[in-house]
């Protein structure tokens, strides 16, 4: 594997690579870029992600978006229609199945067949590659709102080709965020390079005046991820995407549950990413924010799940996220029925509507949180750039190798897995173990103090048991995993 660097892919290399990529599955043949440009140019603005979220962002509104995808096109369309009408969704997704995410198109094909036979979806998402450009367009044409591709695919080149040509106007993922939490043996150097392709493809559309939105996957493993970790990853992916010509970015963050920390995270995500983009010469890139309702283990009980959904919606609205990704009351059990999915949306809509005119004040505790997040991100990213000899891509790869960047609970072998998060006495997520993160003394001391506070309150030592208790806590009706009495 040749080393990746953060540099725009040369046109001829890109075109050569495209030829290979499109051979990945027979449906690749149908991708005709010129025709796709025309298709996009003729699309209604209301179906395009960029104008819709840009307007929301200007108005300070928080839009709502579900996750949803089933194997068969007719059913997928009817599902999305239902979520739009009954669920009052503002934006729609097409969640891709796990086989497609692993480029296992043959298994996906089986899944389609079995689904037809069994009369229910045997895939956990929509196999867009197998369906191809035409069927994707069928989805887009049936839905009078913007539709985004959501997945978790380390190598999403073919998926991007097909779905963009298919009329989708937003694409989730990134070379880090769709690798480390979603793969076991895939080299980040490879995924960065594959995602440079995806970003270049979007840059290519962009050069035709076709605005496609790009969204790095903020929540990573969804489980007690400290904001500075996901921010660092998000900002790195933003920088890499911008370099390939992407102009519209939505950066994401997964709720942790402490309101002040969550609002601080949303505000710093916006500010920091804009600063880093500007410093890298991309001041013209638009940044919006995405808030994910709690991404870790959910309560089994539906009434309790509604509470978790509501509290996530409240944090999203008070933190002025541009959009919020919605969970459902079935979260702990399985892929939701359409009714459960619509229910999660309606709960979210009600909260977002009730809170949109309230706002939150810039308080001292909020300032402190923001300052700490910013310091941590700056310390991490400074080391990333340094170790990358001034190159963000090279730096990212080496940083994971060295544990300078490290994602809690990530399954990837390329992740150090040395850091350990735990909640402090107010429920904010802190570092119980900072591993090899390049934090200064002040940051270290801050986290230690916060966890000592909790340990004292709980009359037990700071230990891995706290982490386990915290992992279970929300699922068991709490925020902080206090020792059971």
């Amino acid at each position, binding site marked *: 594997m040749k080393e990746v660097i953060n540099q725009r892919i040369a046109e001829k290399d890109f075109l050569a690579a495209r030829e290979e990529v499109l051979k990945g599955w027979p449906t690749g043949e149908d991708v005709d870029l010129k025709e796709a440009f025309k298709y996009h140019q003729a699309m209604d603005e209301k179906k395009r992600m960029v104008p819709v979220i840009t307007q929301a962002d200007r108005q300070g509104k928080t839009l709502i978006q579900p996750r949803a995808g089933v194997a068969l096109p007719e059913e997928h369309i009817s599902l999305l229609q239902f979520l739009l009408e009954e669920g009052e969704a503002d934006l729609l997704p097409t969640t891709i199945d*796990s*086989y497609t*995410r*692993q480029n*296992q198109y043959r*298994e996906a094909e*089986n*899944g389609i067949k*079995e689904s037809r036979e069994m009369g*229910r*979806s*045997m*895939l*956990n998402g929509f196999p867009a590659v197998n369906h191809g450009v035409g069927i994707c367009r069928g989805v887009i044409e049936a839905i009078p709102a913007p539709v985004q591709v959501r997945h*978790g695919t380390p190598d999403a080149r073919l998926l991007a080709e097909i779905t963009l040509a298919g009329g989708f106007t937003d694409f989730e993922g990134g070379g880090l965020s769709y690798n480390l*939490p*979603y*793969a*076991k*043996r895939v080299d980040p150097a490879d995924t960065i390079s594959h995602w440079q392709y995806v970003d270049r493809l979007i840059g290519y559309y962009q050069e035709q005046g076709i605005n496609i939105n790009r969204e790095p996957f903020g929540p990573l*493993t969804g*489980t007690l991820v400290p904001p500075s970790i996901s921010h660092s990853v998000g900002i790195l992916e933003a920088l890499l995407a911008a370099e390939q010509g992407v102009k519209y970015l939505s950066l994401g963050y997964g709720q942790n549950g402490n309101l002040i920390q969550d609002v601080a995270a949303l505000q710093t995500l916006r500010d920091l990413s804009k600063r880093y983009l500007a410093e890298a010469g991309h001041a013209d890139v638009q940044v919006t924010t995405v808030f994910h309702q709690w991404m*870790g*283990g959910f309560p*089994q009980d539906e009434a309790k799940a509604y509470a978790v959904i509501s509290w996530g919606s409240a944090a999203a609205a008070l933190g002025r996220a541009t959009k919020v990704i919605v969970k459902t009351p*079935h979260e*702990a*059990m*399985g*892929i*939701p*029925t359409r009714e*459960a999915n619509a229910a999660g949306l309606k709960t979210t809509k009600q909260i977002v509507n009730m809170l949109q005119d309230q706002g939150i004040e810039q308080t001292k505790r909020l300032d402190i949180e923001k300052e700490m997040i910013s310091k941590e991100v700056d310390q991490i990213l400074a080391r990333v750039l340094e170790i990358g000899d001034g190159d963000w891509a090279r730096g990212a790869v080496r940083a994971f190798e060295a544990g300078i960047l490290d994602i809690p*609970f*990530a*399954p990837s072998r390329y992740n150090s897995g040395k850091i350990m998060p735990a909640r402090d006495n107010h429920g904010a997520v802190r570092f119980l173990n900072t591993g090899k993160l390049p934090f200064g003394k002040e940051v270290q001391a801050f986290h230690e103090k916060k966890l000592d506070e909790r340990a004292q309150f709980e009359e037990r030592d700071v230990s*891995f048991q706290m982490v*386990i208790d915290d*992992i279970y806590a929300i*699922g068991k009706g709490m925020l902080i995993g206090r020792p059971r009495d």
Partner: protein
Amino acid sequence: MTQQATVVLGVIGADVHAVGNQILAHALEEAAIKVVNIGVMASQKEFIEAALETGADAIWVSSLYGHGEMDCRGLRDKAVEAGIGDVMMYIGGNLVIGKQEWSKVEDLFLKMGFNRAYPPGTMPEEAISDLKEDLALRGV
């Protein structure tokens, strides 16, 4: 238990859900059971090979992402072929797609050859105590 039991632990298929796997490994170790953790995205072959190599008493399969039904078919046959047909096999997680009646799901997996199946939200302690019982019956 007279000797230390060994469990092969892993998440089957293209499934990357890693958190439960890490907690299960920890809980088994705490219970003085030897854990061979093959981690996420483990194929049927990897499960069987690990069990063969380590002479494991049990295989604990997790499936969270909904493709469990397709991913697990034939696992028991592979064990039989490998000559470890009587290895204890447990499965847990979010085994099928969507919220379905548990008794039906359990049936499905028991018929597939698993000795026990666990619904979402199972605490490790519960399955560990079942395991100790099952193995005791076998004299392990």
